[in-house]
């Protein structure tokens, strides 16, 4: 057998884990609305996030109507266009991706994967979702107040965010900021839970270096979020004060529309530092869970141990730490002291090294594997492709000099969509195809899934790859119309139309996915406990879907790391984490449907 340290044959006892008392609800409301079961909360988070995400998807379709066919849709005026741009970005980044990865996947997977009955603070967990839900309602309300939602761009830069001349500069921006503050309050309650549960409630034998990378990714992302969101919180509060009672945190002396304003002495650049001190870690708050999840999908479906597990864990930690010292690469042309450029370009390019290592290790996991091209695996490999593309263009923008021509152009839009929209969303889809059988007990339809994958993967590449070249030309972003700009050739307009058509196709195909989710819930093939023959604990539960409390009478004991696939000498090509060495050595088969933890 191998000599690798984390493939320890012995049982390792961590800190004692006390059994927790769970609150079992007796009413329908208590079970489905005010539930304290992390799995129910996960589904609540996921459904809310996906619902509001669909609104943002529809908004992007309207934006593409205007960009692809300018002037043909007169109901999209410049104000509405900017409101669409703003709401689309804000919803997708915060209310969909952050909430879905941490609130959705985090809640569902952390307790199951570390062998806990539930989150450590179930009541706080419940409140977390309800505050998030109110934040979403406030966000939606901001679209219906006089003046509409804010059109300041998702970055909400002052002074324009709170001055006339920008749509929604009265109530719209205030509600937006209130909604963000609520989101952060709600997230903090959930986030504390995720961190404490990982650190405190792992089952016996589940050492940190035996945890699946999914848990590592979500754990580290949560740590980042807990440290980064406060910066956004204070900027939201200060901007509310600037707007409502006329303080000057971010507002210098200004003459707006011919009026001398009362503001003096504030700094718009300060807001940008605060915003990006949150905003850059935010990229990794979305990316790290995706990194973790995709690592597990690759290992399970390639029937192979993730390559370089320890390196992968350290890469997650190093990326997380570095993500706090790169924020101003979003601000190279913001007017901050230009000498900052040297520092931030260097840190930014350094972060490429651990990121590249992760990519190598994913590909090397496929190397000499035994690859099952299941639907989750298609999405996982699709992710690697788009992430390589999006990651490499980050080297253009991060390298301060090259950012000069490319900043504020469509190149930036193409880059961040490739790296933090398409890539994480492909992982989200892969993860849903992968874990849907555990959540519902039924498989999603394979044919529909493959169709969904192919159109989404090829379609999004057709949208965003050519878009980089508009950026090279110098086509600016956040422009309602680029007509009448001399250096933009007619052919760029045709390209824009083509991109829009690809976008409509990709948008429409998502309906197939929702149809699949809906129909399979009732008619999908029975999944059994462990349809993918995976090693991690969530597949070893006695019931599928797992009941409140997750495991049977006793919590599972963990004897090995999460990646014992194709171990030489073992009869099956996987050994679940809770199978003791004695059973493997005796050559006893491991019955996947036995389901009883050791």
């Amino acid at each position, binding site marked *: 057998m191998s000599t*690798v340290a984390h493939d320890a044959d012995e049982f390792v006892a961590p800190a004692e884990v006390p059994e927790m008392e769970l609150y079992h609800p007796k009413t329908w409301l208590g079970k489905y609305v005010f539930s304290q079961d992390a799995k129910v909360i996960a589904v609540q988070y996921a459904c809310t996030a996906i619902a509001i995400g669909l609104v943002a998807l529809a908004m992007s379709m309207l934006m593409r109507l205007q960009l692809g066919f300018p002037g043909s849709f007169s109901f999209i005026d*410049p104000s509405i266009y*900017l409101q669409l741009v703003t709401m689309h970005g804000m919803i997708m980044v915060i209310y969909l991706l952050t909430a879905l990865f941490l609130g959705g996947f985090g809640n569902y997977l952390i307790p199951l994967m570390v062998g806990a009955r539930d989150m450590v603070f179930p009541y706080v967990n419940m409140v977390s979702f309800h505050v998030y839900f109110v934040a979403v309602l406030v966000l939606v309300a901001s679209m219906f107040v006089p003046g509409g939602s804010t059109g300041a761009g998702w970055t909400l830069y002052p*002074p*324009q965010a709170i001055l*006339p*001349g*920008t749509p929604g500069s009265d109530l719209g921006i205030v509600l937006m900021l209130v909604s963000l503050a609520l989101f952060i309050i709600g997230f903090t309650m959930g986030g504390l839970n995720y961190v404490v549960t990982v650190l405190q409630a792992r089952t016996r034998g589940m050492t940190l270096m035996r945890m699946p990378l999914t848990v590592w990714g979500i754990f580290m992302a949560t740590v980042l979020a807990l440290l980064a969101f406060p910066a956004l919180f204070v900027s939201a509060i200060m901007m509310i004060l600037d707007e409502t009672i006329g303080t000057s945190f971010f507002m*210098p*002396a*200004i003459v*707006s*529309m*011919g009026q001398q304003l009362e503001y003096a002495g*504030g*700094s*718009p*650049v300060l807001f940008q530092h605060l915003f990006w001190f949150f905003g850059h870690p935010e990229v990794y708050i979305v990316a790290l869970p995706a990194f973790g999840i995709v690592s597990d999908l690759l290992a399970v479906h390639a*029937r192979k*141990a993730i*390559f*370089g*597990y320890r390196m992968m864990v350290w890469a997650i930690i190093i990326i997380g730490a570095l993500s706090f010292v790169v924020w101003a690469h979003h601000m190279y042309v913001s*007017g901050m002291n*230009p000498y900052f450029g*040297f520092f931030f*370009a260097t840190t930014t*390019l*350094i972060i*490429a*090294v651990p990121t590249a290592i992760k990519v*190598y290790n994913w590909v*090397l996991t*496929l190397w*000499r594997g035994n*690859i099952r*091209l299941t639907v989750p695996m298609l999405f996982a*490999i699709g992710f*690697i*492709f788009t992430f*390589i*593309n999006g990651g490499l263009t980050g080297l253009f923008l991060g390298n*301060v*000099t090259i950012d*000069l*021509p490319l*900043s*504020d152009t469509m190149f930036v839009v193409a880059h961040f969509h490739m790296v933090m929209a398409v890539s994480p969303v492909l992982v989200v889809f892969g993860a849903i195809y992968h874990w849907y059988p555990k959540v519902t007990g039924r498989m999603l339809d394979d044919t529909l899934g493959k169709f969904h994958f192919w159109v989404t993967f090829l379609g999004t590449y057709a949208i965003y790859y050519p878009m980089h070249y508009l950026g090279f*030309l110098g086509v*600016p*972003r956040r422009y*309602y119309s680029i007509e*009448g*700009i*001399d*250096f933009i050739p007619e052919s760029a307009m045709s*390209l824009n139309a083509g991109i829009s058509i690809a976008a409509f196709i990709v948008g429409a195909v998502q309906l197939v996915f929702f149809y699949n989710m809906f129909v399979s819930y009732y008619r999908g093939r029975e999944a059994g406990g462990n349809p993918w023959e995976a090693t991690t604990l969530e597949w070893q539960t006695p019931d599928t879907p797992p009941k409140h409390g997750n495991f049977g009478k006793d919590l599972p004991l963990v004897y090995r790391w999460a990646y014992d696939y*194709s*171990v*030489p000498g073992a009869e099956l090509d996987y050994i679940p984490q809770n199978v003791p060495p004695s059973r493997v050595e005796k050559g006893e088969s491991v019955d996947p449907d036995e389901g009883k933890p050791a």
Partner: protein
Amino acid sequence: MVFGVVLILLVIGSVLFHFLSPWYLTPLASNWSIIDTTLDITFWVTGVVFVAINLFMAWCVLKFRYRKDRRAHYEPENKKLEIWLTVITSIGVAAMLTPGLYAWAQFVNPPEDADLVEVIGKQWQWSYRFPGEDGMLGTIDSRHISAANPFGINPDDPRGQDDVLVASNEVHLPIDRPVKLLLRSQDVLHDFAVAQFRVKMDLVPGLVTYIWLTPTVVGKYDVLCEELCGVGHYTMRGHVVIDEETDFKAWLKTYPTYAQTVSGVGVESTTAGTSLVEQGRKLAQSRGCLGCHSVDGSAGVGPTWQGLFGKTETMVDGSTVVVDADYLKESILNPGARVVQGFAPIMPPGSFSDQELDAINAYIKDGLGGGS
């Protein structure tokens, strides 16, 4: 099978697209070829990585497909390989970062002898200020800004008296002279960007930021605002014209100094000999009116000027107004007074002399054919 082949085709397609597509960097017209060089280096390094990793991945997908009778190789770690990959990656990163930082060092240090020109942005117009014969710009304070002093020049500063004020979104610069552009905003963030120059920078109220460049090709280039600045953002455009030295000097002479705008002496010379309608047309263009108001009836941020004169418009309060010279003048000087229904009260008040107002009125009335 299919997936591996598709991955290979995507790699080939991406590379072909790069070389065959008509869309790439707009031709350079400044000294910043080092930016293009850095970009090229980055393209080669990242391009090789893109092709290599993806082809390797495609090969893995083709070669190691699932077979029941086979086991995956069990190799959780390979320290040597991981260290090698880390080292090679670090070298690649250094190869891109080094020229990048080298070029940035040039960007942050403008040459000592660079000419000074100030660029002023406000919603949604550009204007410019040149130092006069003393070679120095006078001080500016936003508290001095008024209709009579739109640049906010400090009236007590002797250095500002001879500053040349270009109240137009078109600026001329001499070829082959390094120029340091000082960037100021009066209201919100803007960004001065000319694709052919490569360099750009935000204008921040309360700060003076800068870029520098040496124009190398005579021509007329678009100036775009590239930092979101409100609903008229996409209309905040201008032009920079690169001239031979003599043409540039002749152009600059047509603009008044601050002292001249105060005294009113020597300002009218530029308009001599052109019709009122033509003067109005030029003003409307150079002051950015046409960014929001179309002259062909198409929709924009503000009402179109086509057929505007004599038209009956409904105001936001429900009353109606027949558009005449007085209403137009009022709307230019005090746009918020009576706003047409369906439009937001976001037009910045203009600062125009009486003669200029007459010219714009003439342009709207006679040049754009209002019915009555």
